[in-house]
Every structure is written in structure tokens, then in C-alpha cells.
């Protein structure tokens, strides 16, 4: 039944639309509004259902180039997941270790992981960039970034 890619994608989107509609129907009503808060969400939910049904019956009209985009070698998928994990840890540690330290670690390891071989340049960039950004933001723009465990 699910032959084309459009049909598979439609099914995922249909689930999203259904979930969204379900939540829309649970929205509390407000007695004095002519147009309540749930009108638009319900409309959007049904609109999405209609569009998804249309997509389900549409033939794939992608160009070869667009199709080729999905042919990602396994190695690259792993690289993507790894960078994803790097970013996750970056966010997780940001407020604990502070902006400068976390960013420096992130830039160095992420660039190194992705195949940057000039370690000295990497270290220089990884140290100077976060410091520069940190002081620009905290001193010049008056926006505080997490200080963390460093004394400044």
C-alpha cells in the first residue's frame, strides 16, 4: 500500500495533524470571545489533513538531484549523529562550565572530528574565538553569557 515516498511521508504528517487536532479539541473555551482560541488551530489541523491527503495521491515530482540528496553514505550519517551529540553536550555543559570553556572544547573537538588536521590553528581559533565573542557580548553589548567555572 505504501509504495511511494510521498505516501510514507504523508502518513507521518497525518499523525502530526491528528495529534495537533486532538490537542486543539482539548483547548479550554473562553465564554466571552466571538472567535475563541481553538478556532484557528482546528482550521489549521483540518487544512493539514486535506493537504496531506492531496500529497498522498500526488506522484513524486522530485528531480534526480533532489532524490540524490537522500543518498547519504552511512559514514556521513554517523558523522551527522556525532555532531548532533557534540552540540547536545555543548548545550548541556554550557551553563555548567561556562561559555568560554564549553565553546573552546566544542570548536576544537568538532573541527578535529570532522577532519581538520592543523591542530595548532585549531587550538588558536578554539581559544581566541570564544574569548573574543565572550568579551564582545559581556562588555560591549552588555549581554551576559554564562560565566561558568572561569573567574571572568
Amino acid at each position, binding site marked *: 500500500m505504501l509504495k511511494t515516498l510521498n505516501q510514507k511521508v504523508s502518513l507521518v504528517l497525518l499523525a502530526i495533524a491528528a495529534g*495537533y487536532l486532538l490537542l486543539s479539541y482539548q483547548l479550554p473555551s473562553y465564554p466571552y470571545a466571538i472567535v475563541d482560541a481553538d478556532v484557528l488551530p482546528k482550521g489549521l489541523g483540518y487544512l493539514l489533513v486535506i493537504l496531506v491527503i492531496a500529497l498522498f495521491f500526488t506522484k513524486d515530482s522530485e528531480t534526480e538531484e533532489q532524490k540524490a540528496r537522500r543518498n547519504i553514505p552511512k559514514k556521513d550519517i554517523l558523522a551527522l549523529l556525532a555532531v548532533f551529540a557534540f552540540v547536545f553536550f*555543548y548545550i548541556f555543559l554550557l551553563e555548567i562550565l561556562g561559555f568560554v570553556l564549553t565553546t573552546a572544547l566544542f570548536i576544537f573537538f568538532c573541527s578535529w572530528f570532522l577532519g581538520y588536521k592543523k591542530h595548532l590553528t585549531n587550538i588558536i581559533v578554539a581559544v581566541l574565538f570564544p574569548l573574543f565573542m565572550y568579551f564582545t557580548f559581556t562588555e560591549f553589548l552588555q549581554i551576559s553569557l554564562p560565566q561558568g567555572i572561569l573567574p571572568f
Partner: protein
Amino acid sequence: MGSLEGILTGFQVAFSVEGVLFVLIGVFVGTFIGMLPGLGPISAIAVMIPVTFGMDPTPALVMMAGVYYGAVFGGSTSSILLNAPGISGTVATSFDGYPMAQQGKAGKALAIAAISSFIGGTISVLLLMMLAPMLSSVAISFGPPAYFALMFLGLTAITSLSEGSTSKALISAVVGFMVVTIGIDAQTGTQRFTFGNANLLEGIDFLVIALGLFALAEVCTLIIKRKDLSLDNTHKLGSLKITKQEAKEMSGPVTRQSFMGFVLGVLPGAGATIASFIGYITEKRIAKKPDEFGKGSVRGLAAPEAANNAATSGAFVPLLSLGIPGSGTTAVLLGAFLVLGVQPGPLLMTDRPEIFWGIIASMYIGNVFLLILNLPLIPYISKILKIPRPLLISLVIMFSIIGVYAISFSTFDLYMLLLFGVVGFLMRLFSFPAPPFILAFILGGMMEQSFRQSLTISNGNYMIFVKEPISLTLLLIGLLSFAFPIIGHLRKRKG
């Protein structure tokens, strides 16, 4: 305040030390980021928004406008030198720019691009100066139904003009609209889709969406392609000089495409990309020697460059005078306005003439700066193209993280950023265009408001949208814009 007085105020702002300085910073940063393959004006503007916090809105917005047209200008450099357009608006530039570079005339190609862009930019600023105030004075009488219809038109135009399948573009817009319904409803105070999470009460910040769907999604593509582009194949620049014959050849296409590009930029949904393609195709069609196109033709390079820069200024017309963006990029720019507490729209010209006219007047200076930056400095600036990909990837991620953190100070938003990065990448993989999503996200809140205001005025009667001639016409045009792709589709099937 009269128009003339306003224009003078604008030039005062633009020619002040502060004005000149921030235009310079804006166009420089814009050129810089626009040049990087994959990173376009949307990422450039989104990354620069945090920098404007705490700044006075006038210089801040003058700078952001500079980032925008600077990025379009800069995009042509990577198109010509690497055949890797930084943004879709300069794809057509590579058709003749890259062959020219391969023939050892990269310097000449860059010079032609810079001069065409300059002329396109300058002519269109003049037109912007005339058209924006006119449109403002018309739009001032628009009620909520007309505004709703106008935004509807903007949204349908961008979806119907998107690349690929119309249903995918529409789905993208609807989902963008759904995301904006998260948070406290402005009219009734009802919490919608917040799951009791305090971080979601104010909704999702547009920077999270802009940086996630564009910058981070682009990072994913860069990770996959990190080995593809060897940058050693940059060609020798050669002389920057343009001969008299070439100047003569350029003049026709540049003048024509400056006007046409501007008009296309004003129309909702069109913008730089479509203007540059149409510019290229038109010039090819009317050229005496069309077979020269694609092989390094001067006309073929000058036309899209004049057109895309003209369209960029043209896009400011609806943004400044109606407060309604016609493209993904101007939608993000509108976000920048709102972050600074400035609501663009018909009242901007009278309430904040220094901003309205300041931005317009600063574009003259900006275009001159771009010409200066690009002509003699191009060999040096283009070195940025040699930044190693792994380092570039890490730095773009860092900028995105700072951008979001500086606006919300919460790691929750950073996780959301990561999530939307994944969403943006998946959208690319399955060919769902992202601009309709961001435009719907930015317009969504305003659209819902004007929709409900209209219905409140009419006491719930939906006829209010078709009673007024303005809103009826706009809605019909919006619906009609879908007819074209559908008719085209049916024709294809028959054939």
C-alpha cells in the same frame, strides 16, 4: 512631517558618523557571510540580530538592512569563483560568471557583477524612495480584513512560487503556522499546546526557527559535503578592467533588469531568486547571440546581478510600507524589526521617519560601500572561501547557539534550536521548502490577530472578508496564484 522633510531626516541619519559606521559594518558582515557557500541572507540576518540588542533601533536597522543586501552582493563572489552559489539568488550568476572565471577572467567577472549590482541597487533605491511612501499612504486606511487578505496573499504567493511540489510548500506553510500557535493566546489568554511547560508560554522565538531551519540545516548539508569542494581550484583573478565594448554590452541588460528586478522584488513571493532567473532568461531571449549565454557572456552575467540586487531593495517596499514581508528573508528581517521594538507598517513613515527614511537613505551609501569593498578588495575578501569546512561548521554552530542564548538565556531554547535544525534538515531531504515555513511562522501571529479582529468587528460573520473590495480582490489573487501551478500540472498530465 512631509515627505521632503522625511527624506532630509533620513539623509541626516544615514550621513551621521554612526549611520555611516553601521552601514559599513552591515554591508561588510553581509558580504562576508553571503560569500560563504550555503550561508545566505537569512542566516546572516539571524546571526546578527543578537548584536543589535541594546542598540538604538535606527542604526541597528540600518545595519541589518546592510547585512541583507550585502549578503546578496557577496553571494555572487562564490558563484563566480567556485560555482558554489552562497544563496539561491545568485545561482543564475554562476551560469556565465563561472565559465568566465574558468577562462581566466575571474577579475573581470567580479567587476561586471559588482558594477551591475551597484547600478541595480541604486536604481531600485530611487524607485523604493518613490513607491514606499505612496503605498504607505494607501495602506493607512486598511482595516483588519484587508490586512488579513494581504498576508494571505503574501503566503500563497510564496508557496505557489516555491520550487517543486505546491502541496509540499503548502504543508510547510501550514506547519509553520501551527508552530506559532504554541504559547499563550494573545486575545483570550488561553494556553495553547504548552504542555504546562513554562518555557513555551511565550511561544517559540523566531530566531530558534530561523537559525534552526536555515543555519543548522545548512550545517548538516555542509557536513555531508565537507570533502566535496576542494578550494584549490580557485582560478587566477586576472585583470578587473572592463573594456568599452563590454560596458556598452552591459548597459542594456543592466538598465532593463534593474527595473524589472525591482518590480519582481516588490511583488510578494518573488524576490531575488526569481528576479535573477527571469532576468537571465529574458536577456537570453532578446539577445542577438543567445548561444553566447552560458559560455561566459557579459550580458548573461550582468542581467541576474542587476536583477537580484534590484529585487532586494524592491522587497523593502512591502516590508517598510505595509509591514508585511514577501519572502523568507524579509520575514526574518521583520523579526529583527520586532526584536528592536519597531513595528513596520503604514504608520512607520509618519511615526518613525528617522527609521523609515534612514534605512532607505543609507542604502545609497551601502551600495557605494559595496562597490568599493568589492572592486579593489575582492582578491583579499575571497580568501574567506578558503576557510576549512570543519572549522566553518563549528563556528556556524557556535554563532547559532550564541544567537539563541543571547535572546532567551535558556538552554531549553537551545534544545529547541537543535530540534528545528533536525526538522530543517529533514525538510531539505524530502524537498519541503523552508521559506514558506518561516514566512507563515512570522506572519501567523499577525494573521490570526487580524482574522479574529475582523470577525469580532463583524460579530462572527465571515462575509466581512469578501464585503470590502480590497480584501476580496487580494484574497482572489491569492487563490488564483494556486491556479497556475495546478493548470500547469494538469497540462503536463495531458501531455
